[in-house]
């Protein structure tokens, strides 16, 4: 287990140093004024630790389709603004903006509706992180990373909250936005509310 996790962290370092995604503090820059004029985006939200929940919470939203947060009080396809407002009241969130196509976004929403409704929650194997990572991988995002880990003799370990960061960082034209605890939401979040 430790070896696998270590391998992932090494991969994470490689990704950060090689792909150099732009890091935005939304208060000083607004990346999304350029990012999603046509509704072509996916937002992966990785919430940090809070209290006893040392692992955090992962969720995903799609332009015009709303938020998909497995295991929280928000129904699938509900307001991303409301979700992030609540999250920001008690934790920091790192958001990864991926320039996906409408077809990818719909496919990921379909994946979640098909695989994460009428199924049993399991803290270790069927949780918020597997939902987000599975959705991304269902459209090919992150599959190269998983395959490279396997080819290197490792085991992809994407069941923990927070690991969605690794997958999201392999997405198309990823931008990173920090949403601090207690902070205001960037205006672009409204684009991820249901139409």
């Amino acid at each position: 287990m430790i070896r696998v996790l270590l391998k992932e962290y090494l991969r994470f370092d490689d990704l950060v140093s090689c792909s150099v995604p732009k890091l935005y503090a939304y208060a000083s820059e607004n990346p999304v004024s350029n990012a999603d004029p046509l509704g072509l985006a996916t937002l992966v939200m990785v919430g940090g630790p809070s209290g006893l929940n040392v692992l955090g919470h992962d969720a995903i939203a799609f332009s015009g389709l709303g938020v998909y947060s497995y295991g929280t009080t928000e129904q699938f396809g509900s307001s991303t603004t409301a979700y992030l407002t609540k999250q920001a009241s008690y934790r920091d969130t790192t958001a990864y903006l991926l320039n996906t196509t409408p077809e990818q976004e719909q496919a990921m929403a379909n994946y979640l509706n098909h695989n994460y409704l009428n199924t049993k929650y399991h803290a270790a194997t069927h949780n918020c992180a597997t939902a987000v990572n599975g959705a991304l991988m269902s459209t090919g995002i992150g599959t190269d990373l998983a395959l490279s880990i396997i080819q290197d003799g490792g085991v992809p370990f994407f069941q923990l909250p927070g690991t969605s960061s690794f997958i999201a960082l392999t997405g198309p034209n990823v931008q990173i936005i920090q949403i601090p605890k207690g902070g205001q939401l960037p205006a672009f979040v409204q684009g991820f509310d249901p139409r």
Partner: protein
Amino acid sequence: MAGHSTNPGAREIFDASMYTEMQTIESNYRSKHLADPILLRHAVNNEFDIVGIPSGDERFPMTWLILDPHGKPTKIYKMPPDGGLTISCGFIDYLKSQVTVDSNVERLLRSNCGK
């Protein structure tokens, strides 16, 4: 006891299985557009009774409430959290004649009921 923690991050660990089942129920009934409330017995975790109440919202037409979340860290399990409740006071009396309704939940229902 962690299960009664007021910390939201801690609560979400203990609440996840409750909410995932509520998400399924909400999704399954979303397109049915029921005009009246519906009571589902032992529908969440094979234990908890849940009621669906017309919300007045077109996209999410029902608001769902666990009626007696005994022993759980959250007092009121409601989906969506800000969902409307269109319910008669008589239906609350009917619910209480059929199942256990927690006092916090009853208070919420009565604050929204009409004749």
